[in-house]
């Protein structure tokens, strides 16, 4: 399978090839990959890509998923994207 054709992050168009290259360059944790590739920073908030990335990290580093969380798991709100017009309405209630 051509890893250039496997999309890992739909929000930011990041391929498996990009992820593997970044890990090789030393961006070898979820936190660093996110900041280097923007993976997980799109509208899905990592809900699509996070497990895929962690599985790849796990395979490359030969560590179980549970050993890859180097710091507390940070999930940032909102859980789903919200348009400003809905929030602004809420603010004026």
């Amino acid at each position, binding site marked *: 399978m051509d890893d250039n054709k496997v999309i890992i992050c739909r929000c930011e168009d990041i391929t498996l090839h990009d992820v593997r290259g970044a890990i090789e360059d030393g961006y070898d944790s979820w936190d*660093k990959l996110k900041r280097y590739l923007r993976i997980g920073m799109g509208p899905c908030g990592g809900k699509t890509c996070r497990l895929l990335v962690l599985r790849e990290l796990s395979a490359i580093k030969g560590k179980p998923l549970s050993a890859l969380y180097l*710091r507390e798991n940070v999930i940032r709100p909102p859980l789903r994207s*919200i348009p*400003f017009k809905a929030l602004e309405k*809420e*603010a004026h209630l």
Partner: protein
Amino acid sequence: MTYDIIIVGGGIQGVATAYELAKRGAGKILLLEKTFLTGGSTGSCAAGIRAQFGSPFNVKLMARSLEIFENMAKELECDNDYLELWQGGYLVLAYSEAEFEGLKRNVEVQHTYGLKTNVLSVEEVKKAFPRVNVEGVYGATYHDRDGHADPFHVTFAYAEAGKRLGVEIREWTPVDTLLTENGKITGVRLQDGSSVYAERVLVCAGAWTTSLLKTVGIDLPLWGEKHEILITEPWERLLGPMVISFSRGYYIQQRPHGSFIMGIPPEDPRHWYRPDEFDFSSSIDFLLRMSSEATNVLPFLKGVNVVRQWAGLYEMTPDHHHAIGPLEDISGLWVAAGGSGHGFMFGPVMAEQLSKWMMGEPMDIDLRPLSPDRFKKGALVIEPAVVG
């Protein structure tokens, strides 16, 4: 293990200074970071860069910092797309006659140092930036070389360039205690119990600096203040400048990537000195206040989706300026922290000048007024153009 210099902190300040020191032949340099590079305030900042300050000191420093940003891709062997450098200017809006007068005074200072800041009437703002709602606006100032750079990629680029010059970087390596002997620094003890030694230690640990200095009895009045930010989905380019108001506190900018990043200071800022008190939770209060202000100033944002919000710490000092330089009480101990919300944009110039200072070379901009010992002497430095 023995090094010439140990740097504590993997944000912009520590990483850029490591590079600048290596470039000047400072010897064996070790950089220690508690989590990962940009894991602290650098990585949670709003990514703005501007020279529109009011004190001659800050204007001079940021004029130089902008130059460094403009030449950074070449210096660090990467490209401007990677650095996400965007110079769409800062549009500073005034909401009263008095505020407008203050901004004009700042512009005079900026002109003295060669910046080409423009003073705009309301009509001129409407014409140049038709998407901005000018209701309540008395006038504005605009400097077209202000803008944005990506804090992650800028820091990573400094780190890569530093590594090429021999800088050793260890992540996930928290420092527990500074080590001294007869009033001299000797190194640091790590949280795993081991020690590394150096004749000089530079602490660039942001809001975490205070607790580290405390381990050798130094009281630095530097605290963490929680600020929140949000970011939207990416759109095509709709907004050139950072739109900002010092009196209302908001700032809104579209990144080269397309997303809008924005913040507004807390109504009742909370201060912490001890890391175990730091709070990075996100609040609905911020989200709603920000949405209200953003859709008022830039009504087109109503249809744009918010995708993420987060909190970070301003590392504040009593006069909102860095604490930078050697500490009188412990020889060999240096500090560079306290950017007070501007640590990222000042990072490159502070790193450049500090490395000259540490190497005994003449500084182009004398940083000595920002010495960390100024607080106990009451020699504060004042800046009028800040948010929050």
